């Protein structure tokens, strides 16, 4: 039984490292870590759909970007009231998922991919064209960090914002882990494996998928909120196919349904994008090449070979 303590020790060690890193890194790298954590949440949320439900969404930026716009708009133009703005933005991101889910879940496979893509591009078009509300192509710069002074927190320094993001990242990991271990999570994987069998067994397949779609949207919305406050700005690209494709690549690169995989994928892609963008404008080309390489060399993702061992702790 001693072996079962290993993951707990590893998790604690990982958390300790994440807690200490800001003390030893320059603020530039702390900022990079914030981006890693945000995309970690975003990738985990997509993996609930891709890894556990088998639903390949190519429009997951819709909830992410919508929440970012709502949080940004309210903070900039109405009031920097963090609890209200967080709640409103989460609601908006969840509502987008609730509406898109109704339309997209009528289809499967490549059609699901196409319709999620098309729907999210509609939002991108809206953000692009509706200049008076969204600032159009330029987006909305100058969005202040959330004001949590009533809790005695000043999130303006990057280190504070890092710990704030880390706390939410840990919360998301815990919630996601609880969810995938639950009867509901088991049912999602049954549906991924065979919808017709699950229907025959007595499961309302659609209801499970729809609830999962909304939950994934809510977690993506949280990532979007953290993202807009970190960058102090939001622009149409946060709703764009490129963002959806990037998070999809993170999940596939790390390994779908492996929990740690999407987080690893997010880390690698964020770091790589950062390094590469220092000396070339052709980030998209590189992203495409990675995509092809992963599909050819490691179709099950970097953690694919560890699946058997991870299965002991991570339902997949």
């Amino acid at each position, binding site marked *: 039984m001693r072996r079962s303590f290993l993951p707990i020790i590893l998790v604690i060690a990982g958390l300790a490292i994440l807690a200490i890193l800001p003390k030893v890194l320059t603020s530039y790298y702390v900022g990079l870590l914030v981006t890693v954590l945000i995309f970690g949440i975003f990738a985990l949320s997509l993996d609930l759909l891709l890894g556990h439900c088998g639903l390949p969404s190519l429009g997951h930026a819709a909830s992410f970007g919508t929440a970012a716009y709502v949080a940004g708009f309210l903070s900039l133009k109405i009031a920097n009231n963090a609890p209200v703005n967080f709640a409103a933005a989460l609601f908006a991101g969840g509502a987008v998922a609730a509406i898109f889910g109704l339309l997209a879940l009528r289809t499967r496979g490549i059609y699901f991919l196409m319709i999620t893509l098309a729907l999210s591009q509609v939002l991108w078009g809206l953000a692009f064209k509706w200049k008076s509300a969204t600032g159009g192509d330029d987006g909305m710069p100058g969005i202040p960090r959330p004001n949590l002074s009533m809790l005695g927190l000043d999130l303006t320094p990057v280190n504070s914002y890092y710990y704030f993001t880390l706390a939410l990242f840990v919360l998301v990991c815990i919630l996601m882990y609880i969810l995938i271990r*639950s009867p*509901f999570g088991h049912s999602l994987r049954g549906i991924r494996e065979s919808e017709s069998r699950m229907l025959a*067994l007595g499961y309302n397949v659609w209801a499970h998928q729809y609830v999962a779609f909304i939950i994934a949207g809510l977690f993506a919305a949280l990532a979007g909120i953290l993202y807009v406050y970190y960058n102090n700005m939001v622009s149409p690209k946060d709703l764009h196919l490129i963002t959806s494709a990037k998070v999809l690549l993170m999940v596939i690169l790390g390994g779908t349904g492996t929990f740690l995989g999407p987080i690893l994928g997010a880390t690698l892609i964020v770091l790589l994008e950062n390094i590469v963008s220092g000396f070339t404008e052709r980030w998209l080309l590189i992203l495409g090449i990675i995509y092809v390489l992963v599909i050819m060399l490691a179709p099950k993702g970097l953690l694919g070979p560890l699946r058997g061992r991870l299965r002991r702790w991570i339902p997949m």
Partner: protein
Amino acid sequence: MDSNVAPLHVENVSKNFGGLQALLGVNLTLQEGERRAIIGPNGAGKTTFFHLISGVLTPSSGHIHLFGQEVTSKPPYRRAALGLARTFQINNLFPNLSVLDNIVLSVQALEKTKFSMFKPMTSYRHVYLRAEELMEQWGLADKGNTTVRNLSYGDQRELEVVMALAQEPKLLLLDEPTGGLSPAETATVTAMLSQLPRHITVLLIEHDMDVAFTMADRVTVFYMGEVLAEGTPQEVRENPKVQEIYLGSPI
């Protein structure tokens, strides 16, 4: 017996796929506890008939009642909730999950807690105990941790039946449970089926005549989408029309 409380009552059901008339005016009523076999050549519409009963497809016309309730256009999961379970002619399992998890999903299907998102699945001890009991009973006990896609075809075929039994059905539809099995495996599955308690009503599609005629109280013969004959195994065996379509095969 009053046909309104019959486990299954099918009334004048037809199904066409575009121009193809797969079923035409089929009637069939099962008594509680009955074992009924459906036989008929390939393409006769037997599997389509199962799809209509279980709700995978809806009929072009006609009515289907389960336990006295009209279910003609109800989704499959509602029919399962009434006590219907089925197996598939082509294995329809959860290939990347373990045998235990496959059965657990079956046992859990009609539990109210299946929507729970908070407690771990493993904390529902009674579900696991029931699943383990079933594996013990049907000879899968040592394969609980095996991933289903790594099971032999014969074991997968058996699991196909165990999954349906785990639902504790009142009416069980079996679509060629011995299909593709060796004679030895066929014997195992047949023994398994003849052990089923009598409170389960069984409708069995079977291409193996020996299995069909030994297992069934009554036999229905499908031919080109219609019921060609129905009766006791003896009556069906002696029916000239049946002998004609099975010309050459031992009946």
